């Protein structure tokens, strides 16, 4: 059984974070993946494409802006969750996977507003010890208020 210090986070949301989708950040991202797709690199190709401009690769939503310490309620609440999990015997974390739905293109110059909700925290008994599966859902809205994408990510705590 997980203690209430952990389960109290179910349903909690981070509040809105803002991501600016900069062209340079798109290119650093594509470079790190080693993805030469001209929709990320070639202005003229992108302008003549059905997008009309450079777009972000699916899965890139802008570099996560770091808020000054103390300014961001969101990061503090997440840190509280990590501490609670560590105290419950799950100090280590691995990325388990992700699911995306893409609703509209994200272009260089867009500003995205994202909020993340803790959907599920589940303990599972395993042969190599117990693990906790944590599911977060993030929705990304663009500057026109359109839902651009939704992500469900799973982290595994052990």
């Amino acid at each position, binding site marked *: 059984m997980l203690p209430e210090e952990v389960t109290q986070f179910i349903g909690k949301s981070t509040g809105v974070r803002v991501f600016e989708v900069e062209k340079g950040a798109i290119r650093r*991202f594509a470079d*790190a993946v080693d993805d030469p797709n*001209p*929709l990320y690199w070639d202005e003229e190709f992108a302008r003549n494409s*059905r997008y009309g401009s450079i777009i972000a*690769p699916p899965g890139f939503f802008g570099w996560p802006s770091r808020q000054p310490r103390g300014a961001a309620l969101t990061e503090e609440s997440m840190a509280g969750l990590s501490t609670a999990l560590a105290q419950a015997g799950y100090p280590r974390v*691995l*990325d*388990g996977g*992700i699911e995306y739905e893409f609703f509209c293109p994200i272009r260089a110059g867009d500003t995205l507003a994202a909020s993340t909700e803790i959907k599920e925290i589940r303990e599972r008994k395993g042969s190599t010890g117990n693990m906790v599966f944590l599911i977060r859902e993030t929705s990304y809205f663009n500057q026109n208020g359109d839902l651009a994408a939704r992500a469900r990510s799973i982290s595994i705590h052990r």
Partner: protein
Amino acid sequence: MAEQLYWDDVEVDTEVKPLPKVATSQMLVKWAGASGDFNPLHYDSSFASSQGIGKPIVHGALKRQWLVQLMTDWIGEQGTLKKFSCQYRAMDYPRNMKSMTEPEEGETWWCKGRVIKKYVEDGNHLVDCDIWIENGQGEKTTPGKATAVLPSRG
């Protein structure tokens, strides 16, 4: 870019054009900076040991983007990725660098996929694919699924 793929030319069991990738310690540092994921698990050997991992591992999210590229390369400029998922089932370890630009000999990863369903919904011509990454031993470390809209000649 390669020639545009059309929905009409795809059948169930059609192979997604495979994409080879090599993960290096250098690529992981680039990825950390580009994605904002600075977990030392991916670049600090002693931290990785202390976490019971042994040595730095490839970011799951980098493997995710390899699979995204597998799909976006294949569906082309006229295709649209609608849904995508993957699970990081096994760890992958990057090659170390031999020089500033060359990795040591070692593992090559292959991103692969196969069409499992072809259908029309709300006027969109869609394909569902199984996708995965195979490590150098041919083991699927990162399975997933993708749904894309393709242009139709119809």
